[in-house]
């Protein structure tokens, strides 16, 4: 993958120049957390949430926002734009590999996701008493697998969408479903039980994140589903991906 280092450096610079995207990906979930956290009632322990505060209960859904924006919106749009405008093809005429550009984009997306998650966890802990994840290993595994599943779905869409517009059109319903089942639009305790169960198995797996955050080991089936989605969507993306 010749050119990876230089491409990563330049792409990072380009990414940071796009302030709106940086703020949305890295800052938005924490911003929502702060707004909710400023409402005193949402900071009181409540039996509805097994004695946690609403803010703590809702934090995993904010991680879903991070993953959905970075993985299902920014990344596929960027890749489809690069293909649509012939950037990948232009790169193919040089000794550098277009795969290096793909890898650089993935690394930047992962870095943004991790930054966003760390910011959320730290601000939640310091400002609103949201406990740090109580089952760190389980939380890490759930987060990594959930991220992998969503990025793979994003890459799958980027692989089949010819243009940025098509990518966004394909992505919109997927984005809404993921956000809905992740409990972002309506907190999950307001959803009927059936929809909550569907949400457990919808990437990135908000229940596994909540379980491990509150100290219960995530259920193996939840994790396995995320791994399967990641592998299937990832393999599909690799098979269908076109440089032009």
């Amino acid at each position, binding site marked *: 993958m010749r050119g990876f280092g230089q491409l990563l450096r*330049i792409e990072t610079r380009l990414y940071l120049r796009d302030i709106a995207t940086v703020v949305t990906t890295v800052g938005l979930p924490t911003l929502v957390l702060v707004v909710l956290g400023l409402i005193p009632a949402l900071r009181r322990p409540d039996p509805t949430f097994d004695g946690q505060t609403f803010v703590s209960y809702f934090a995993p859904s904010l991680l879903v926002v991070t993953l959905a924006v970075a993985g299902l919106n920014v990344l596929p749009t960027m890749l489809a734009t690069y293909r649509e*405008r*012939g950037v990948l093809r232009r790169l193919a005429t040089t000794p550098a590999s277009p795969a290096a550009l793909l890898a650089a984009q993935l690394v930047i997306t992962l870095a943004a996701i991790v930054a966003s998650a760390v910011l959320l966890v730290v601000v939640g802990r310091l400002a609103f008493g949201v406990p740090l994840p109580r089952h760190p290993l389980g939380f890490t595994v759930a987060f990594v697998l959930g991220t992998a599943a969503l990025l793979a779905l994003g890459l799958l869409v980027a692989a089949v969408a010819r243009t940025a517009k098509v990518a966004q059109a394909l992505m919109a319903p997927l984005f809404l479903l993921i956000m809905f089942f992740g409990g972002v639009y309506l907190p999950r305790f307001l959803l009927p039980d059936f929809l909550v169960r569907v949400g457990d198995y919808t990437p990135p797996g908000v229940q596994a994140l909540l379980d491990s955050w509150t100290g219960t080991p995530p259920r193996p089936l939840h994790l396995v589903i995320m791994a399967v989605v990641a592998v299937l969507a990832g393999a599909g993306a690799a098979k269908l991906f076109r440089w032009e």
Partner: protein
Amino acid sequence: MPVIEVTNLHKRYGDVVAVDDVSFTVEAGEIFGVLGPNGAGKTTTVECVAGLRVPDGGEVSVLGLDPRRDTAALRERVGVQLQESQLPDRLQVAEALELFASFYRRPADPARLIEELGLGEKRNTPYKKLSGGQKQRLSIALALVGNPEITILDELTTGLDPQARRVTWELIERIRDRGVTIILVTHFMAEAERLCDRLAVIDRGRVVAVDSPAGLVRRVAPTQRVRFRPSAEVDDRLFTDLPEVTAVERTGGQLVVSGSGDVLHAVASVLARHQIVAADLRLEQSTLDDAFVELTGRRITE
């Protein structure tokens, strides 16, 4: 010595034959034109030469390399400017050149290339803010930054205004003077005539002729047209009776007498004998445009 040899190249996309049967050779140090109407197979041909597409038949040899197998070596030595390929909006001119330079083993100095291509004042300008001509010059710079021995330029001046087009032409001549062999894909007659040492005329996936621009013009019937406004009524037969004349047309008050050989002298003699003065007299000779129509049976439509 030829640096590029294309023999019986054939390429299809599904049922559509893009390149039927194309053969030509390019000599070191020349500007070789690939001329033809849109959809003739020009771009597919040079993409096979550049190793971006795999031919379905025929042989391609570039600098003694096989573009299919020796891809890595070819990328180092051949610079390509693609039709309709853009860069990220926020990428700046100098950044783009430094990035591309870093891909090559022995790159040119990006700062010098920026000056040479007249982009010095734009070095920190993002791609989005460049004019069409500046984008094209940046694209040429990127094709040259690896110090290539061969450069492929595809539809370089399409969409440029006449001024920017002329600047680009001068630039291409300077590149040739540095010893770089250039393949120029174009559908502009004027561009081919001005720049190319030799050119291949391609139509419907086949090579119709390979020659110098002047050679192509000489090949077609050497028709000349005398166009003038007669001072008095003249009978067409005065001209059609002349052995040199093949046709007489009238457009408005103008008379157009076509023929071969010394048409002008024959027409002038007739006019003198009848004491007719020819106003706005012009002699029109065959151009590359005529040669193209003659060779392909149609005109390039832009």
